[in-house]
């Protein structure tokens, strides 16, 4: 397709995989080639930063791969260097890896002041029952309502409906059980609200369990 061709024209040689590898090897020599490569990387870095800044939602690595004809490893290296830079700088802005992508956010340190000054609302808290239901779905997805009920010992239909309304969970298919009930799983918004990059970033249940019969509820 033509957009890709256009793209290649703009970064004529350095973005081909082979070329990039070659240039990497030469990086120590400080020859004109490696200078170009470095200039190019700085250029891409700035461009990535601008794109992430403009985007209203987390941009996944695949976005950069697709739009810049760059390979995933290279894209990740560039973005990680941006993440690190904002981290070290320790200012008001952070680049976060969240919900399968990267997005700028304000530093948590200023939360209270920002809420007050910008008139931001505190995010609505989730009830105990909703959190319980959500944690079961998060760990056991895909899971049917009947299975959630069995674990909680109480009907969870309302909780599931409410979590759906908050777009934290969604139906993800059907269970191969009698009646083929709907099965639920978590959404990308879930990841975003809980500061997770992917579902496997959740702490292992076995790790949490150690707290279980201590006075964790106090």
């Amino acid at each position, binding site marked *: 397709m033509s*957009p890709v061709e256009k793209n290649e024209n703009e970064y004529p040689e350095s973005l081909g995989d082979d070329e990039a590898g070659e240039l990497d090897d030469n990086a120590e020599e400080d020859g004109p080639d490696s200078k170009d490569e470095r200039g190019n990387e700085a250029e891409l870095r700035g461009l990535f930063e601008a794109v992430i800044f*403009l*985007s*209203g939602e987390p941009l996944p690595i695949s976005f950069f791969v697709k739009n810049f004809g760059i390979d995933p490893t290279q894209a990740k290296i560039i973005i990680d260097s941006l993440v690190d830079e904002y981290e070290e700088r320790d200012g008001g802005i*952070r680049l*976060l890896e969240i919900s399968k992508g990267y*997005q*700028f*956010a*304000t530093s*948590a340190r200023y*939360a209270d002041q*920002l809420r007050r000054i*910008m008139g*931001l609302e*505190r*995010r609505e808290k*989730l009830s*105990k029952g909703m*959190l*319980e239901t*959500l*944690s*079961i779905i*998060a*760990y056991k997805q895909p899971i049917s309502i009947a299975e959630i009920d069995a*674990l*909680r*010992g*109480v*009907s969870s*239909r*309302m909780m*599931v*409906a*409410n979590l*759906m*309304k908050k*777009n934290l969970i*969604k*139906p993800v298919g059907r269970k191969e059980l009698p009646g083929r009930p*709907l099965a639920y799983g978590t*959404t*990308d*918004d879930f990841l*975003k*609200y*809980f*500061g*997770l990059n992917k579902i496997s970033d*959740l*702490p292992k*249940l076995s790790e*949490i*369990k150690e*707290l*279980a*019969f201590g006075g*964790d*509820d106090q």
Partner: protein
Amino acid sequence: MSVLASEKCVITLEKFEGPLDLLWNLIRESRLDITEVPLALVTEQYIAYLRMMESLNIQIASEFILMASELLYYKSKALLPSGEMEDDYFVPPLPPDLVERLLEYKKYQAAASSLREKFEKQSDCFFRTIEQGEIKDAEMYLEVSLFDLLKAFSDIIDSQETIEQEEIVFDEVLVSDRIAYIEAVLSSCESVLFTDLFSDNPTKAVIIASFLAILELAKMCRIKILQHRLFGEIRIFQGGAYNVSPEAEHTAD
């Protein structure tokens, strides 16, 4: 019930998520290991708690009652002579399968509190909301050529007969499911936006099924549908329970 007793109730009255939650708290209060806590004691406390709720006119969910009868069953079973060596000092503990259920449940309760921490931590980070107009000179640019447009039209004209086949998508998404879902959503709130009935990127089938479900519900007078203005958001209300809000008076047509 004496004043003193009812005061005590108010103090200890917590909202328990379900019978397992209540049981767990009773066990915790006994300060005994879950495998050692006497079945009789827990049963007694559990039933006393339900009585208290009852006396306060608090509606008790059927699940709580069910658990009470379950506990009584376990207790009576434990009282029957087992034929094994009798030990007068033996105090029957909770049955193992109940202990297992409780531990499994507790695992997710712990996970829930770890999720809560994450939620609260994350709610301290703010993201920019990007206004459409903010990308100033980015003109809208469609990745659609004139030919794409023509082809789309030509395909439609050509495939008039095949449209019916495509519609068999209904198999996957049942209208009855969508009805149940919409009713579940509406049981917890007065109204909901049509668009909020969908998760990210709903399939055509989900949209159609939802649409049919809404029509069906409207026909049965179980919901009311309101659109504030032409092409405004469609809002769905519980049947008979909607009040026309001030904005709604601007209904254009």
